[in-house]
């Protein structure tokens, strides 16, 4: 049973990790806690469902398409909303909470409040046998998709000029600007990538959950917890944090009680914030005042 719980936990953890990566990337770039990641995840689920059911597009096409659409939405959100309140971190956070409320309510108005499943063929197939245990198709597909996304993200950040600009801006925006980098564009691009990550997470979560206006609310919070565990602003940390959170939550729910799964997540977050505030892989930063 423990093996099954670990597999299940890692799968859910992958979804948390993608959302956490978005949080960390955006925070690293512009020091903003983007609490609307859950709402973007929900939006991507709805978009994905509409593209597959109305336009009959295959899932393999829908993933990059929705990621692109969410990237565009993230870009526009940063440009027209968050940039306007850039000078005040508190107002910035409140504006992200506002977006987090507005998007699901717009979904209710324009799409409805009923839940819908993804088509059966999405992330389908035969169970995989490993060490005598059966792994459901949705689980191994989530591992595959997230692995590809993480590899693409790493390659982009490490080997492309865009990635270099994002990393440089995240490290020291003033210095990056002095070196001739357009930090304004890199901020928007960080948002775009962070939103695209939430978009992909939404498509994966849509297979596990049903698509509804509130599907992203708890996942958005768990993604935040994943980012805290790993070290806010640290990308590998968000990945590790998500996986650890998923596994601990599933195993803890099995040992203690499934009623306390959410509580387990938040207790872990509080413990991390008290005893290791920089997270598992985060670095302590000394700021001169």
């Amino acid at each position, binding site marked *: 049973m423990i093996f099954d719980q670990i597999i299940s936990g890692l799968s*859910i953890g992958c979804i948390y990790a993608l959302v956490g990566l978005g949080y960390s990337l955006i925070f690293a770039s512009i020091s903003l806690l983007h609490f609307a990641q859950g709402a973007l995840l929900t939006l991507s689920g709805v978009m994905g469902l509409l593209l597959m059911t109305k336009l009959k597009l295959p899932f393999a096409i829908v993933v990059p398409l929705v990621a692109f659409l969410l990237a565009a939405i993230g870009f526009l959100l940063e440009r027209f909303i968050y940039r306007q309140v850039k000078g005040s971190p508190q107002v910035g956070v409140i504006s992200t909470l506002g977006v987090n409320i507005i998007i699901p309510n717009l979904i209710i108005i324009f799409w409805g409040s*009923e*839940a819908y*499943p993804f088509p059966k063929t999405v992330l389908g197939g035969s169970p995989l046998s490993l060490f005598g245990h059966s792994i459901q198709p949705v689980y191994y597909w989530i591992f595959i998709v997230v692995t590809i996304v993480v590899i693409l993200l790493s390659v982009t950040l490490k080997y492309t000029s865009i990635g270099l600009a994002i990393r440089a801006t995240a490290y020291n925006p003033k210095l990056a600007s002095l070196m001739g980098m357009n930090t304004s564009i890199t901020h928007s691009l960080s948002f775009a990538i962070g939103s695209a990550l939430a978009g992909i997470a939404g498509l994966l979560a849509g297979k*596990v959950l049903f698509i509804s206006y509130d599907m992203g609310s708890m996942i958005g919070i768990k993604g935040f917890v994943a980012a805290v565990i790993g070290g806010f602003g640290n990308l590998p940390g968000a990945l590790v944090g998500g996986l650890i959170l998923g596994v601990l939550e*599933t195993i803890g729910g099995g040992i203690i009680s499934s*009623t306390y*799964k959410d509580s387990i997540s938040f207790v872990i977050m509080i413990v991390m914030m008290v005893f290791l505030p920089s997270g598992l892989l985060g670095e302590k930063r000394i700021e001169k005042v």
Partner: protein
Amino acid sequence: MKKMMGMTLMFVLFLSFSAHGAEVFRLGLIYDGTGSLATHGRQGKWACDWAVEEINSKGGIQGRKIEVFAENAATDTQKASTAAYKVITKDQVHFIVGPTSSSNSSVIQQITERSKIPYVATVGSADALTEGKKEWFFRCSLAARFQSEDLINYCLNVLKAKTFALLAATSAHGQSLMENFTEILTKKGLKQSLLVVERFKDKDMDFSSQLLKVKAASPDILAIYGFSTEAARMVTQARAMGIKSRVVGGTGLDEEYGRLAESAGVGTIVSYGFWPKVPIPKVKNFIKEFHKRTGVDQPNFAGPQTYDILHAFADLMNKNPNAPKLSLKDDKLESDRLAIRDAIATIKKYDGISGNISFCKDPTPDCRDGIKDSILLQFKEGGQLVKLQ
């Protein structure tokens, strides 16, 4: 000039918050328009609007029109509380009807008991709602204690089940059904046949912790007591994990469960108070008209139960010569509410769409649970419900 405009505005605002229009029967409707119980809540609201339209077309309540003050509780107890305070204190309704969850009904009930206003729940099933001498509360829905007995007997006698597993939501609905289920098995001397008892929360994403235990126990029957969306998610995951137990459930599973669970939900047996395919002309006409108004083919019990209680009340007030005469003046609000409560308690054997409804005066479960007959139904392909013989 500015001062004059300001004073005029203040006066207009004051008027809007003070005395209401002349003698209108104000009905509060608190329903779950969104959230886990949205299909029940919305159907309850549509049925309420339809019933009110019909009653008003015949003159309303004792010659006065009904005005509905509807609030969406969104299957959220905080919103239910806000909604209750609003309809009671601001709208000053005479009577509240609620197609809303048991948890919400419990919260609203605490407020209506304190405020002394009659409240009829048309969806909530938790037994606790009618326990503890609730003077102002009535239930026009099938209570949990009527849901499990027939279901368990069917499992034991017809399905020859020997072992059970129970997964119950942490909501008041799930809690009540879980307690009932366990109590009935214990009374039959079969407590040891309940191999797994686990809880889940409404917004849970993954049920592998609970389902792995069920899989290991391999019970004949898996009882899922929760609402449609979570139950559908759970049964889909259960089937994907290879769990082959027969699934049973309660009134929380409606046509949305059948639609979402698809083939995984086929064969699920539920205990209901209403079956939309009852071959009685007035039920058939109701279903046909409901479909015409809402597009819903197979309404759940929320619509008929809400429709029935409003018509039962209107019939009583308009046709019974012994019915109290309502003043509906603002200064008589308290006495009107008391008269309405006492009138509802006299509803006896009202033959409605959802079945026989009877109340009585004592604040006991027996008196305040208006519907007592359950019916066993099974989900077939396409989410259709058929009656079990």
